[in-house]
């Protein structure tokens, strides 16, 4: 009986430890904090690998804001690459000399599936972040 109790305790500790390792909800909220006034939250993508690729349908006439956030609250240096449906690069917030800019404003003129890559340029081996999309209300 004692042994079961100890195993349960270890399991709980392990669970709570891994749970606190990467809290994507915090990462998302940190990304939302980067929104300018007048923008509302739309969607977030998890970033747990050095390069994360995802897709999203953007709609002509809507102005989007793309930000990133990290779970530890540090300033995000994640690169956002936005591609059109032909996977042609529209924009990146990363500049080799100047580093990473905080956000991408995207007034969409072309409805369709777009692709987004989030790249972690830090020296850390792992990343816990969120790529957040907002829209202008």
């Amino acid at each position, binding site marked *: 009986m004692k042994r079961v109790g100890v195993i349960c305790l270890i399991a709980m500790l392990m669970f709570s430890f891994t749970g606190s390792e990467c809290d994507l909800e915090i990462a*998302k909220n940190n990304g*939302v904090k980067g929104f300018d006034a007048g923008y*509302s*939250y*739309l*969607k*977030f*993508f998890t970033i747990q690998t050095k390069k994360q690729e*995802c*897709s*999203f*349908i953007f*709609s*002509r*006439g*809507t102005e989007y804001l793309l930000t990133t956030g990290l779970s530890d609250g540090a300033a995000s240096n994640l690169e956002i690459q*936005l591609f*059109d449906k032909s996977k042609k690069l*529209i*924009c*990146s*917030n990363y500049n080799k000399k100047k580093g990473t*800019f*905080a*956000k*991408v*404003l*995207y*007034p*969409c*003129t*072309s*409805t*369709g*599936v777009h692709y987004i890559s989030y790249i972690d340029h830090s020296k850390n081996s792992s990343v816990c972040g969120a790529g957040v999309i907002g*829209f202008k*209300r």
Partner: protein
Amino acid sequence: MNKISIALISFSLGLISCQGDSGEQNMAKDAINQEKQETEKINAIDLEELNSLIGSIPPPVLVANMISEGGYKYDSKLLCSVEKMQKYTDSYKQAFGLGVYGTDLAYTQVFEQAPDGMVYFQTVFKLSESLQIEHLFDKVTIERLNQSNNIDSLLNISTSNMEKANKHFIEQKRPAMSALILLGSWLEGNYLLSEIYKKNPSDKLKEKIAEQEVSVEILEQIIKKFEHDQDFNNFSKELKPLFENFVKVDVVEKELESGVKNQVSNDGVVKAIETTETQIVVDKKEFEELIKIIGLTRNKLIL
């Protein structure tokens, strides 16, 4: 005599209990086999790919906001009656209903209709209880935000709740639930747009409805993953005529010759400038047919 009776009774009871065991064992075996088959079917679905497809469809708040920004008046008669929820007795209908009511909730919130918002949130919450995901919905915070009309926070939390529901069902290997929430939500959004278009036809609304053709391509890929699921097919087969009508819409892309490049402002914002623009091409009669079929499909599926 007594000994013989006792022996016979014992023997009979033994037989009955053996039969009972065997019957229960068979039932248990059937249940295990059924569960195994279901698991195998779910395992055959690439959940990561499915999650990615679902995640690429914009949430309903965007449609609701578009209606609000367009200057159209709030019309509660367009919303799905909350009484219909009583009829959603199985998990498939409940998941689909959750999507429908989730969109209606976003519509009430964008128009700052707190009393209706509360009614629709309660409906969403009841369905979440039926689907055993009520722990994902922060009832106290939503009720508080609803009273204070804090729209940005309210929209944020409502959109997040639906995201959490999707994530939960994918993690719990119940992907059909995620897909049905999406289908219900998407169809209701189209219904709202099309009903408003009927009363106030405009090129902008027409474009927003027709451009859903892009979503249809993805929704078809999602539906294909549940071909084996008869309960799921009961929903998806009703969407087929609607999808066929969307195929008649063309999204044409043309190059822009502005020569403007991406700009970086002083406050660290990169403004992305696209070099293409899309135009929606759809025949007038085919579009009218599309509007009609959106309404028919939605009204049939919410019954």
